[in-house]
C-alpha cells in the first residue's frame, strides 16, 4: 500500500471521492486486504465525529411519521404483523383440511427464514468490515438474495396452493365415488342376503345312473330351487322321477314334484316343496308311480349332498 492509496482511503472515509478516484480505490481494495482494512478503519473513525455534532431535537411528530411510512410500505419489514406471519397464516388457512401439506408449507417457510438469516450471517462473517462501496454492494446483494428467496418461496406457495386445490377436487371426487360404491355394496349385500343360494352337485351310486348328473340350486330364503338333470335314463312306462327335499325337522322327505326329462335325458326346472322346508339338509331323486306319490315309496337314484 502506497501513500497515494492511503490518501484515497482517507478521502473516501469522508466521502470526498468521485468518479475515477472512487473506482480506482474500490478496485485496489478488492485485491489489497491491507488497504481494505485501512479503508474500513478510517471510515469508522471518520463517522465517530458525528458524536460531536450538537444535537437538535427533531419535530415532535417525526417518530409518528417514520412509523406511518414503515407501515404504509407493508412488506416483510412493516410494523405490526409481519408479511411472513400473514403468508404463514394464509398457508395454515388454506391447508386447514390438509394438515400434512400445511405443516410442510410452514416448515418450508421456517427453513427459508433460517437460510436467509444464515446467508446474512455468512456475508457478515466473510466481510469483517465494509467500505461504502462494499456496503452498497452488500446491500444490493442482500436485497437481491432476499428477493430471490421471497420469489422462490412465493412460487413454492403458489404451487402448493394449486396442489392443495387439486387434492381437494380429487378428494371430493373420491368421496363421491366412495358414496356410490358404498351404496352399490349395500345393495349387493341386501341382494345377497335376500338370495342366499346353495348349489349342490350330486352323483348317483346306482350303476345305471353312473353317467348322469344332478345339480340343485337351493334358495334358502325363498325355500325354492332349480333342478338340472342330464344324461338321465328313460324311466319305464308308468313311472316318473320324483324330487324330494329332506328336512331334518320333519319325519319324512317332502315332495318337490314330479320331474319329466326329455328324449336326451335332460331337464331344467324350478321346484318348490309342497310343504315349507326350514332347513333343506339333502335332496333326493327317486323313481315313483306315474304322477308321483305323497310319500316316498320307490328306489332312490340320487341323494346328497
Amino acid at each position, binding site marked *: 500500500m502506497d501513500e497515494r492509496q492511503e490518501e484515497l482511503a482517507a478521502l473516501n472515509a469522508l466521502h470526498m471521492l468521485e468518479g475515477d478516484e472512487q473506482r480506482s480505490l474500490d478496485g485496489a481494495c478488492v485485491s489489497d486486504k491491507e488497504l481494505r482494512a485501512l479503508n474500513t478503519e478510517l471510515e469508522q473513525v471518520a*463517522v465517530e465525529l458525528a458524536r460531536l455534532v450538537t444535537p437538535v431535537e427533531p419535530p415532535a411528530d417525526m417518530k409518528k411519521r417514520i412509523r406511518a411510512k414503515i407501515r404504509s410500505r407493508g412488506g416483510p419489514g412493516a410494523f405490526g404483523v409481519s408479511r411472513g406471519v400473514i403468508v404463514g397464516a394464509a398457508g395454515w388457512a388454506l391447508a386447514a383440511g390438509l394438515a400434512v401439506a400445511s405443516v410442510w408449507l410452514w416448515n418450508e417457510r421456517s427453513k427459508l427464514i433460517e437460510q436467509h438469516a444464515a446467508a446474512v450471517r455468512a456475508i457478515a462473517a466473510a466481510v469483517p468490515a465494509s467500505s461504502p462501496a462494499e456496503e452498497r454492494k452488500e446491500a444490493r446483494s442482500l436485497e437481491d438474495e432476499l428477493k430471490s428467496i421471497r420469489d422462490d418461496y412465493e412460487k413454492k406457495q403458489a404451487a402448493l396452493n394449486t396442489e392443495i386445490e387439486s387434492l381437494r377436487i380429487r378428494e371430493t371426487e373420491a368421496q363421491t365415488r366412495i358414496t356410490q360404491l358404498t351404496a352399490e355394496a349395500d345393495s349387493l349385500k341386501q341382494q345377497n342376503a335376500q338370495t342366499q343360494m346353495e348349489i349342490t352337485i350330486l352323483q348317483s351310486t346306482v350303476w345305471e345312473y353312473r353317467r348322469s348328473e344332478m345339480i340343485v340350486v337351493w334358495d334358502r330364503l325363498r325355500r325354492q330351487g332349480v333342478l338340472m338333470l342330464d344324461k338321465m335314463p328313460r324311466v319305464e312306462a308308468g313311472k316318473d322321477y320324483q324330487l324330494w327335499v329332506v328336512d331334518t325337522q320333519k319325519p319324512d322327505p317332502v315332495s318337490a314334484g314330479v320331474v319329466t326329462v326329455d328324449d336326451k335325458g335332460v331337464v331344467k326346472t324350478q321346484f318348490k316343496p309342497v310343504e315349507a322346508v326350514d332347513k333343506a339338509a339333502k335332496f333326493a331323486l327317486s323313481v315313483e308311480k306315474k304322477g308321483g306319490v305323497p310319500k316316498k315309496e320307490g328306489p332312490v337314484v340320487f341323494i346328497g349332498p
Partner: protein
Amino acid sequence: MSQPELNDEELLQRAGRRDVRAFEQLYDRLAPRLHGLLRQMLHDEREAEEVLQDSFVQLWDRAPSFDPARSQAFTWAAMIFRHKAIDRMRMLGRRNRLVESAALEHSVLDAGSDAAADAELETSERAAAVREALRELPKDQRQLIEFAFLKGLTHHVLAESLNLPLGTVKTHIRLGLLRLCDLLKGGR
C-alpha cells in the same frame, strides 16, 4: 414494557428482530444528534427532516444485518444517515458547490470548547475520547476534517472553496485521519 437498561447495540439488535418498542427507544436516543448532523450537512430544515425520516426507515430495514461485533450502533447508524445525506446532496446538485458563503464558520464540531459539550456528551466516554483526539490534531488538519465531514463536498470543491492547493487538502486529510485513528486506538 420499558427497556431502560438496554444499550444502543441491544436496542438495534432487538429492532432487527422487529421489536418496535426497541426501535422507538433507539430513535429517542439517536435522533437528536443525527438530526443535528443532517442539518449541518444539508443546511435545510425540510431536507434534513426528510432525510432523517428516510434514514430511520432504512435503519429499520437494515437492522437485521447489524452485527455488534463489527461496529457500534451509533457509528453504524451515522454511516447510513451520512450516506443518505450525501445522496440527497448529489441529487440536489449541492455536492459540487457550497450552499452559503458562511458555511465554513458554521461547520465546526464541538471539539474546541468544553462549554459546547452538552450534558449528554459529558456522559459519553466515547464522545469525550473523540473530542480529545480531535483536539490533538494540528489546527489545519482538524478544521479540514471537520469541514469535510460536515459538508460532504469533494476534495476538489473543498480546495477551491477554501482557496487551498489540492495537494495540501489531501495531505492534511490523510495525515489528520491517520493520526485520529492512532489516537482513538490509544496511540500517542
